[in-house]
């Protein structure tokens, strides 16, 4: 095991100290290049940074344990297998799965949802069936359903947003009356930070006879997850958003459902017996893990979970809510900043999407970068949501365990600079100025088709 020690956390203290946490992250504590301010990283919703213990655990795996897993009778292969399966057990415990067999290792949330759409959807959905997803989904929880819907002739039902950026639960209830076969929704919006009432939505979907898929990419890193309490049928996680390495994610599925599903990909490791004519499948989770998995990265995810457990997820969640409350207040004080999504900090995670005057989000992000403040600008892979908001893009700051109120101050200071740079005449491309542009209309129509 790695000998690197991590920041001790005093369990009597209710709040995390972002500065103490930050000290565990090499990329956040590197000296800034000459003439640059220190890095303020506010793009964790896209991918989090990694603490030293995670980086070292991956390195340690390749130093001491690396060999292909399963079926190796030599010590190294057994050690690698043990490291891999130990990580799986940590993941299962982290989300309170009944068994680690319910946790399938995949590359990321996208692959997890595609697996469900392809394997469960392929076997269980048929022409005319209704499937439901929401307007705030990431493309990874829309496009796989579009693909299967087109193939099979499924009907789509959509839950839209209210003015506060929350799901319209009345519309959801109405859709449930139409007895959908499958309901897919995100636990937390990656663009707005809205926290959805997942447990109630799952219960309502089950009452309607639907199977549920919860996209937990933006919740598992930030708040305690209990799949038995949620009672969801499937839940998808990306390891790289929760301090783990890129290239490993998790699909949780109830064992009975996984057992009844056909495989997703065929190949090595997922078989029981292969003849020239026929293959029978291995038991879960192996049935869904064809080929050599990302063992080193999975071990790294196990280390990330150890680290998060040490921080304690309820404190992680409290920390983020405190920062986002501070950020919302500071940003609302500044003129010209329009914040999208719930106004109430208690209803959202550490994601703040905003517009600054009429300045294009990419120009805002560019100027923030000059201040070494890293944010994301664009549609955040949520184009239907952008259409609902009436914008093509937003600027998004997202916070995590290593962020502090000082990071928020740096953000706000840089936003003031962006205003100063663009303080001349209003831009010609504001939405009001463009409303009569025939070109504009064409694009709107086109984008809705897409």
């Amino acid at each position, binding site marked *: 095991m790695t000998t690197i020690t991590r920041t001790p956390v005093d369990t009597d203290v209710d709040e995390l100290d972002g500065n103490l946490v930050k000290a565990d992250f090499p990329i956040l504590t590197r000296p800034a290049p000459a003439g640059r301010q220190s890095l303020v990283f506010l793009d964790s919703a896209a991918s989090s940074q990694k603490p030293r213990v995670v980086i070292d655990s991956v390195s340690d795996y390749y130093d001491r344990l690396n060999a292909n897993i399963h079926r190796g009778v030599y010590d190294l292969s057994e050690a690698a297998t043990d490291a891999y399966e130990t990580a799986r057990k940590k993941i299962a415990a982290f989300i309170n799965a009944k068994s680690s067999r319910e946790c399938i290792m995949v590359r990321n949330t996208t692959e997890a949802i595609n697996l469900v759409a392809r394997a469960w959807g392929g076997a269980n959905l048929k022409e005319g069936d209704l499937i439901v997803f929401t307007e705030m989904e990431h493309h990874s929880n829309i496009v796989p359903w579009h693909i299967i819907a087109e193939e099979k002739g499924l009907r789509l039902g959509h839950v839209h947003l209210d003015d506060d950026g929350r799901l319209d639960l009345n519309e959801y209830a109405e859709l449930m009356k139409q007895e959908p076969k499958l309901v897919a929704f995100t636990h937390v919006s990656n663009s707005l930070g809205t926290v959805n009432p997942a447990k109630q939505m799952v219960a309502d979907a089950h009452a309607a006879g639907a199977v549920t898929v919860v996209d937990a990419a933006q919740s598992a890193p930030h708040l305690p997850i209990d799949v038995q309490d949620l009672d969801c049928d499937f839940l998808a996680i990306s390891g790289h958003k929760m301090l783990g390495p890129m290239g490993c994610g998790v699909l949780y599925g109830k064992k009975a459902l996984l057992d009844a599903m056909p495989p997703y990909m065929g190949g090595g490791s997922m078989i029981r017996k292969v003849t020239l004519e026929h293959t029978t499948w291995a038991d879960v989770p192996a049935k869904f893990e064809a080929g050599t998995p990302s063992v080193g990265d999975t071990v790294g995810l196990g280390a990330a979970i150890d680290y998060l457990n040490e921080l304690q997820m309820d404190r992680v969640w409290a920390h983020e809510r405190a920062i986002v409350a501070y950020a919302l207040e500071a940003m609302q004080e500044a003129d010209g900043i329009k914040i999208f999504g719930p106004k109430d900090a208690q209803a959202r995670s550490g994601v703040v999407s905003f517009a600054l005057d009429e*300045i*294009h*989000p*990419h*120009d805002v992000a*560019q*100027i923030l970068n*000059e*201040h070494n403040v890293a944010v994301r*600008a*664009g*549609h955040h892979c949520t184009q239907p949501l*952008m259409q609902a908001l009436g914008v*093509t*893009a937003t600027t998004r700051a997202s916070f995590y365990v290593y962020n502090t109120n000082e990071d928020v101050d740096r953000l706000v*200071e*840089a936003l*003031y*600079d*962006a205003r*100063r*740079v*663009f303080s*001349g*005449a*209003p*831009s*010609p*491309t504001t939405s009001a100025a*463009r409303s009569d*542009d*025939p*070109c*504009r209309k*064409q*694009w709107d129509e086109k984008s809705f088709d897409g």
Partner: protein
Amino acid sequence: MSIAGDSIYREIILDHYQNPRNRGTLEPNDYSYEDSNPLCGDEVRIDVRVKGDEIDDIAISGQGCAISQASASILMELVEGKTLDEIRRIGKDELLEELGIELSPARVKCALLSLKVLKAGLYGIDKANEEIDEV
């Protein structure tokens, strides 16, 4: 207060962004083409009228970031009165030089969108991509 933002948003960029040249649409036109940059959502449409083999009138519409829209406006000045042959010879370096700023690869796409749209309108998207050497 820092002046960090000034290094990219030079006066010429902000001037063209806030006072764009040849803004609008032309109906009828001889060539019209529109495209978007999916990364940023920048959108540009260019309409062209020709007389003989020269640009008679040109108009640009769309929306996007300051880099894409300023670059489009600068392109309008660059092509004024030029023949179609001369436009063919305008490469990405020429337009980037006019912009006069250092851009990251992602923002270079913003800056070159208008040139791509103009060339695609005149002689097709494949040839335009080839000439602009997009990846």
